[in-house]
């Protein structure tokens, strides 16, 4: 019922309640996990009834980005994904007010693998995984997009860019408008790209479950390829093309610029894999639109991350300096408009 070490309890006073929730559990190790700018993540090791266990614990952070789900809403998205056979760690428990008042924590199944994108893209031991990943990711994405609002009635996020109707474009534009308007500084390049987007809208599509952050860094990878899709904090109802465009955003290629789909393969090879997995034909011009919007979203997100520190909500060096990268995404949005859909 209790953690084995008083040292652990001193450092993590919430462990007693967690051990109770996990049953007859002794918690032997708590390891903070890297990543997740809007959550506090830990690996939890212990035993229950003499059987060793390992879980991931994910709690709301003190502040988050606009559009980010809290853990309770995220758990609903994960359940919908698990029901559709998406490879992702399932939710075992939800605990309100665990790490701090008002912060929900979820206990997730543990999956082994590497998530650090640079390692996934460059480690020689993962060469076979890189060959397999495009097809595996395309298949996972098709399963995510197989979920419609009628199949996941409990997932109704209040985030402004979620739309269960036919038009995912208008909420996405309105949310981007809001994202720019709530920044203290004006950005002409982002404004110019947003005007182009509003004048070149793709046709409406029925809403599907959208992961919302389907990119390198959120894929857990082992020697044989994908072991899990992680991080559902930006899940919402929207256009499947949004996930395809987001995967191609330049920043997720980690130096492998010629390979637009996450530094793994070309855009069109990935679109073909998506179609082959049953995802239907892909309109490159529609994905191009969402890729430009993705760059705007990431540019505004980076500026908002810096604001979290400047307003005193967080004190992290990485968050503070990331706003200095807005020009990279601004350049890319304008470049994509200039070269057009390929």
């Amino acid at each position, binding site marked *: 019922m209790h953690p084995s070490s008083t040292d652990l309890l001193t450092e993590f006073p919430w462990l007693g309640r967690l051990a109770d929730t996990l049953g007859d559990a002794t918690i032997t190790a708590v390891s*903070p996990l*890297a990543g997740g700018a809007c959550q506090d993540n830990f690996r939890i090791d212990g035993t229950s009834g003499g059987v060793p266990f390992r879980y991931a614990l994910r709690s709301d952070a003190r502040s988050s980005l606009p559009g980010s789900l809290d853990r309770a809403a995220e758990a609903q998205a994960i359940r919908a994904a698990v029901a559709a056979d998406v490879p992702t760690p399932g939710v075992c428990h939800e605990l309100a007010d665990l790490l701090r008042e008002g912060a929900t924590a979820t206990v997730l199944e543990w999956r082994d693998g590497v998530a650090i994108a640079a390692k996934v893209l460059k480690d020689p031991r993962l060469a076979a995984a890189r060959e397999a990943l495009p097809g595996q990711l395309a298949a996972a994405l098709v399963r995510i997009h197989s979920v419609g609002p009628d199949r996941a009635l409990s997932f109704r996020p209040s985030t402004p860019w979620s739309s269960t109707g036919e038009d995912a474009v208008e909420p996405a534009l309105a949310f981007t408008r809001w994202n720019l308007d709530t920044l203290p*500084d*004006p*950005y*002409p*390049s982002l*404004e*110019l790209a947003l*005007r*182009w987007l509003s004048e070149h809208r793709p046709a409406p599509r029925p809403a599907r479950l959208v992961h919302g952050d389907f990119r390198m860094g959120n894929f857990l990878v082992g020697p044989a390829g994908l072991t899990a899709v992680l991080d559902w904090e930006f899940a919402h109802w929207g256009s499947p093309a949004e996930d395809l465009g987001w995967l191609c955003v*330049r920043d997720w290629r980690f130096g492998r*610029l*010629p*390979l*637009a789909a996450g530094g793994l393969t*070309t*855009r*069109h090879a990935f679109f073909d894999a998506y179609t082959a997995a049953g995802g239907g034909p892909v309109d490159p011009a529609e994905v191009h639109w969402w890729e430009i919007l993705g760059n705007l979203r990431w540019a505004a997100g980076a500026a908002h991350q810096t604001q979290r520190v400047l307003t005193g909500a967080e004190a992290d*060096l*990485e968050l503070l*300096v990331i706003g*200095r*990268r807005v*020009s*990279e995404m*601004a*350049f890319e949005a*304008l*470049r994509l*408009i*200039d*070269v057009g859909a*390929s």
Partner: protein
Amino acid sequence: MPSTPDAPTLLAAIARFLAADVLQEVQDPARRFRLRIAAHTLGGIARELAVGSDLARAELAALGAEVPTDSADLPTAVAAARRAMVGRIRDPSTGADELGALRKALLDIEGASAALGQPRFSRDLHIEEPR
């Protein structure tokens, strides 16, 4: 040859010291990551101090704004020019030709600005493998 190093030279040297000497002594992955960020940021600030004024003048020209004679006035002038240009872009009467010319000019500015932070940032327009 100046007798004292200027600020960009000093910052660049500190960045190299952190990335080369101090990083070797740090084992904790999270602290190593933050140390790399700190060194990288210092390098960017050094480049910004060295050529940032030129970039600010180029941005003012791209935005069609007057360039102040005193470098100390550049940040205020850039902020005002950006605000004015955002209003112009949001104005529905601003035509496609003007917006197209502005896009070309801002591509250069954003590319140069991105390269200050990331010297290896590619400003090529065609970076992807063809179909």
